[in-house]
């Protein structure tokens, strides 16, 4: 455990001195938390917050059950914001992992690290945790701020209760961390093949495609976010995580790093 902690400390010391990573880790959560609040506040001020039921897919309206139509519209809007919020556990680990691994490749600092008694599992776990922990922390803190401040910008109590529904608690509490693990392992695999952190980050951003599928699926009325869907997504990502961790661990063997990472 000491070795993992040392690696996490090292990663944070080094990666957070990079302004671009710091920008991603600090600014994105602030942006994704404040922007919906500002928009909700602006809409309330202009009287648009209730909106029109024609803007909401019929399948979503049907899924609203006992909610009043205007509440259902708000839930639909907030769902879009929260789905955008789910970008955080994907974007933050990708930025950290890309700069951490590619940085070590280009400065050739991995070999001395591999020459220490650290095991490859400890090294991989340390690097992954260093990328995943800030992402989860940023997501959870941002969500908490949103939950606490959204009533102040005119969200109805019934809508606020929907934000704290099992669907979103599963999304933020379980799917978010699973997404972060997926993103970091994917970034690790990509980073082993490229020598530019920006290229690694851009290629790794492919991991957001499934999330965009969810966002557009909901807008088009093809998908309705509910507990069943979230549980299915969580199981799907967990399976992908296992596969990516296996692949990542194979790529992170000492011999592979020293002889094949170019």
């Amino acid at each position, binding site marked *: 455990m*000491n*070795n993992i902690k*040392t690696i996490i*400390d*090292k990663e944070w*010391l*080094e990666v957070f*001195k*990079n302004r671009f990573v710091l920008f991603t880790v600090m600014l994105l959560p602030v942006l994704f938390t404040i922007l919906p609040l500002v928009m909700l506040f602006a809409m309330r001020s202009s009287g648009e917050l209730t909106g029109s039921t024609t803007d909401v897919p019929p399948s979503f309206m049907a899924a609203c059950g006992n909610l009043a139509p205007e509440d259902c519209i708000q839930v639909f809007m907030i769902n879009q914001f929260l789905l955008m919020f789910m970008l955080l556990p994907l974007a933050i680990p990708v930025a950290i992992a890309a700069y951490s691994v590619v940085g*070590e490749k280009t*400065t*050739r*600092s*991995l*070999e*001395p*690290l*591999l*020459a*220490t*008694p*650290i*095991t490859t599992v400890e090294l991989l776990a340390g690097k992954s945790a260093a990328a995943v922990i800030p992402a989860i922390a940023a997501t959870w803190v941002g969500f908490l701020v949103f939950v606490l401040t959204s009533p102040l910008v005119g969200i109805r109590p019934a809508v606020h209760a929907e934000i704290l529904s099992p669907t979103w608690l599963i999304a933020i509490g379980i799917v978010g961390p699973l997404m972060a693990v997926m993103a970091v392992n994917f970034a690790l695999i990509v980073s082993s093949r490229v020598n530019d952190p920006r290229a690694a980050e851009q290629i790794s951003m492919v991991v957001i495609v499934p999330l965009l599928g969810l966002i557009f699926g909901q807008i088009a009325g093809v998908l309705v976010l509910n507990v069943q869907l979230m549980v299915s997504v969580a199981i799907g990502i967990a399976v992908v995580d296992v596969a990516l961790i296996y692949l990542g661990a194979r790529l992170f063997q*000492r*011999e592979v790093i*020293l*002889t094949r990472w170019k």
Partner: protein
Amino acid sequence: MIHIEALTKQFNPRKNQAPITAVEDLSLDVRQGEVFGFLGPNGAGKTTTVRMLTSLIAPTRGTATINGLRLGQDDTAIRRCVGILTETPGMYDRLSAEKNLMIFANLYGVKDPAGQVQKYLRMLGLWERRLDEVGSFSKGMRQKLAIARCILHEPQILFLDEPTSGLDPEAARLVRDFIEELKAEGRTIFLCTHNLDEADRLCERIAIFKTRLITVDSPRNLREQLYGRKVVVHLRMLDPAWVPLLNDLSFVRQVQAMDNKLVVSLEHPEEQNPVLIRTLVQQGADIQFVGELRHSLEDVYLSLIRSSNGGAEEKQS
């Protein structure tokens, strides 16, 4: 201390391609407290050998024991008991020198990390710059920091891959002096270098290696095996008649005349020089200086590498 037995490493670049042999059938022993030079041209397999011996990569065949620990079985323990200075010693450029060393002190499980870091930063003249980012360091300072990093955990065996490569003469001297200090402390040092003068000065024995081991011996013995021992006699004036006269002496192997000098090959100059000098003086020679002709290690190295190339070419044809 290091026992290597038929160590072989092959790499498979791609499927359906023949494997590339980087190290073939390497067997040798390195004694405790010895500075052992490992010399060879670029691409000879020196770094691959060091990586195998430090448990960074696994051999394809053969085995080795490092301080009694077996490769492939005690890899973590081997990495704990050896120090390695890699050919390109990467650092965390955004971190201070002190932070860089603290990370490694913690990973090696050093009991008093701060104390050890301070000890080696002071010893290598980096204490005043300990809080500066390593990115601002010169190449010499980085190399000194890398040496401090590989010795923080007080390993008894050190693998140094090109420790003075690219350093200015002053920094190279400091590194060499430090290696001498480590040697005086009784540590075993496996030194890969292209700097033959450095190997000559520091190493008790050297191995000349190019995928396969060509030879192992002390620099002095290698010179003697290849060139014998030669004495140069500087004369005020050379009489050509002295050449056959000296050749007639039973202990003289060969005599060459060059300008006003005679180069005489002898087996035991310490015993045979007085007779040689007496003979020349009796013939009326005015002797100005007498000295031993030393072939450089570079001559030995190039001769052995060339003969190895010739052997390889013959083998191929």
